[in-house]
């Protein structure tokens, strides 16, 4: 009994971790390539959720899951072109301040457009209910989420490690000057990375809308969690972020079961513990610009 209970919590924690992962991975990618910390990342997550509600009204949930991230990725182009691009070479603190301001603006815009009241999103009927896997009972929708996260994760990994796109990106992170000297312009790659990053955040917003509450401040709430994940994993490390997201999810999931009120606090405590022993995070490397 004790074991089964624990296993169930671990699976729930993994779902939660996958949710964090979708947001934190994009954050970490934009950071690795452009050197900017995007405090407005949560705003794109919130936009993803709200836009999916709008699309869902007319075209149904399935279309919303696809179209909402695409729409947000297109917004990402504007964001990269007119704001982020100014800050690649600048003091990272400036981009922190600007994206912080942008997050504030987007949250207010959402309030104006969609109102301050929380929205509930209905789960498509096909995914309601639970299934038995072996002896355990799992919510169908959560299993679906877990599957989507795994697919996204594998695609991103393949894109970064097997495709020529990823080769240029990884080379550009290390020696941007050399990549330029090989005749490759990094600018379009950066735009693509920002689109990918904010698109993933929007996907998280869309997919998790039915099991969370959609409200204007949701972006601000999730962004600190995403940072905790990135800081624990180590800035700029792919596997660091993956491990850390799952770890945070599981720790939080288990804590909620024993001391419900301490659920959120548990991950911050985890973060401070990790930093005590590994100041650059689990798999983080030293990056001079950010010290």
């Amino acid at each position, binding site marked *: 009994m004790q074991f089964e209970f624990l296993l169930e919590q671990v699976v729930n924690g993994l779902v939660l971790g996958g949710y964090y992962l979708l947001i934190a991975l994009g954050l970490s990618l934009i950071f690795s390539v452009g050197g900017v*910390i995007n405090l407005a990342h949560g705003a794109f997550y919130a936009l993803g959720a709200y836009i999916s509600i709008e699309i869902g009204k007319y075209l149904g949930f399935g279309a919303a899951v696809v179209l909402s991230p695409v729409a947000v990725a297109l917004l990402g182009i504007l964001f990269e072109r007119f704001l982020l691009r*100014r800050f690649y070479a600048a003091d*990272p*603190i*400036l981009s*922190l*301040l*600007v994206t*912080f*301001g*942008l997050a*504030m*603006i987007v*949250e*207010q*815009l959402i*309030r*104006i457009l969609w109102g301050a009241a929380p929205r509930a999103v209905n789960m498509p009927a096909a995914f309601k209910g639970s299934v038995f896997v072996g002896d355990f009972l799992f919510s169908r929708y959560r299993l679906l989420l877990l599957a989507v996260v795994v697919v996204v994760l594998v695609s991103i990994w393949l894109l970064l490690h097997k495709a*020529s796109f990823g*080769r*240029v990106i*990884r*080379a550009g992170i*290390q*020696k941007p*000057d*050399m990549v*330029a*000297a*090989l*005749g*490759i*312009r*990094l600018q379009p790659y950066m735009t693509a990375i920002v689109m990918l990053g904010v698109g993933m955040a929007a996907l998280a917003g869309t997919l998790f809308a039915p099991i969370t509450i959609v409200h204007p401040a949701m972006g*601000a709430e999730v962004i*600190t*969690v995403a*940072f*905790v994940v*990135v*800081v624990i994993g180590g*800035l700029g490390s792919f596997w660091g972020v993956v491990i850390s997201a799952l770890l945070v999810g599981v720790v939080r999931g288990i804590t909620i079961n024993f001391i419900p*009120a*301490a659920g*959120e*606090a548990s991950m*911050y*405590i985890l*973060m*401070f513990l990790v*930093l*005590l022993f590994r*100041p650059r995070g689990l798999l983080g490397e030293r990056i001079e*610009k*950010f*010290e």
Partner: protein
Amino acid sequence: MTSTRHSRYRPLWIGAAALVVLPQAMHAIGLTTTTASTVVILAIAAMGLNLCVGYAGLVSFGHGTWFGIGAYAAALIQRYWFGDEIALPIVLSMVVVTGLSTVAGVLILRRRGVYFSLLTLALAALTYTVAFRWTDVTGGENGLGDLKRGSIGPIDLDNPLAYYILVALIGLGVLYVLLRVLRSPFGHVVVAIRENQLRATFQGYPVERYKLAVFVLSAVVTGLAGALLGFQTYLVSAEAVSVPFSGELLAMVVIGGMRNILGPAFGALFFILFRELFSIWTANWLLWFGLIFVGFVLFSPSGLVGIWAQLRRRWRAVPEQAAAMSKRESHENLALPALLRPHGKQGNILEVNAVSKHFEGIRAVVDASLTIAAGEIHALIGPNGAGKTTLFNLISGLFAPDSGTVRLLGREIQGLTPYQIFNLGLVRSFQITNLFRGLSIYENLRLSLQARHPMRFNAWRDIDSYTDVHAETAELIRYLGLDGFEQIEGGELSHGGQRLVDLGITLGCKPQVLLLDEPLAGLAAAERERVSNLVKNVAANIPVLIVEHDIDRVLGLSHRVTVMNQGEVLMTGTPDEVRADRRVQEIYTGTGTPEVVHSRRIDEREVKSTRVLRFACVNAFYGKSHILNDATLDVREGEIVALVGRNGAGKSTLLKTLIGLVPPASGTIEYEGRNIAGMPTPDIARLGLGYVPQGRQLFAGLTVRRILRSAAWRGRPTAAMA
């Protein structure tokens, strides 16, 4: 160098005047005395935060934590222990904030820059969830109500004006304390750490302690404001510790102006006026506030104060400070000031005995030994990669040697930290000029002399009152021949001037022995002369170990020379012995004629072959340093053109300018008849210019084949440079 009493405390007078008129001004636009109190309270909080953000360069996204903790602590202390007393809860809450922020600071200050900001953000989120969830103590969503303002003697603080006066007096007190702190030696060191932490460390300051102290002070001031707001509203809620509130505080600092002590106070006033006036006609005032905040970050990072200063400059022309080199007075051959001389040390000062260091299989330094006696200049020469800089790093403690000993004045120092070694009197300069670019020359040098003064932690006495330090600084400036330049910022000086200041900073540390790493690199001829004269002069009293590539000059300068090659010491001797040694000659000029498989001399006919590359009158700068000065060269078809010159002569810069990594300031670069000056690097590369930089520029984690394939589909290089 001292300021008058009046100008010193000008912010205090401005603050006092503003506090007197604030309530009336508020009434005039239909706002209440209570709003005036809120302005003052937020101003206190923002000024506290600005200690971190503006002065220490620690951008905290989580000062709401301290605001909230101050408020909760005061509320709880009053509720459980003091009934309707207000003074003691406030004082005790400051004690609580001191304790908690010390613990948090020790942890968070392990990281700098962006990481620090993220950690403060997480801290704010943590405090918020604790405040929100720990219902038994904090009252959760409802917060803690029923606070009492109480009274002081016959004055009832429930009267809004009485409370305003209390808050205003506290605000004035805080302003006074902050002014004192910022004008003290402590405050100046904090600013220096913001400008260049490494330099401050190598002036002998324990920077971590300074940062912790300023973090705690900042937290306590912000916490005090939190307590005051709690008593004003009779209520403390989780709102005060929320992340958005932390952001609003930061916005006040940025909008007001973070390099000015009163800036954040104006930011707070702006915030409240904006909120009160805009919320009359739109519920979405935060949207507009966000837009204004972003606008300030983008277009006016120095905030309202910066805009004000610009306007004033337009009205009143400020006399330009002439920074011309003509102002530089030269006092060649002044003796080293007595204050910098070590006390009568004779014999061997530094003994390096058979030290070795391996890096992952590479033997960087093998059994190297050398001795430096009092009064001598000892040169360390050798080709690139001979291990000179590594030996330097072994001596100065940046790396610990695998074996061997290093003795300074008879005491073994290998294995100590660089900081400990520095404090024993072994001071080094760095290859790259390292000074406080944003601080005046005077400040740069004074910070150095003050590092060994017992008052360096004093956070109360005015810096101007230390006449002894000022006299020493003036003497050092005169010795360096920098008089007339005292007030110019470090970054404004020419490369040679910066190098002099850098040397001055090292001298100001009062070394027993001086290690100079390529002090002449990248300097023009006149500047080389000046710096080497200075080194000669210094060495009469302080022995110098110098690494330098300008062989002629360094052999003319030094008393003894150690030659290194491939990690080993080849020989040590007088400059004449070194000049005469055949092995040394071999290293520097090679052994006779190299075999040439395929050689083509340029003759009349070939000059007519097509010109591929033309470089005409190109100038390039790194900041203030003029690196390429009207550089001109041609490359024709079939030619191999070699570019030779000393370290720092501009060879690499020329190649980087060619490929577009360094934008040229002027001149023409033609490739196959097309001007490519100023084009972005990828475009130049696609035209067919290949660039092979020095060092190993491989992409870790990618195979060679993949790298080549990535580049291949972008056009094939036709001219290679190496």
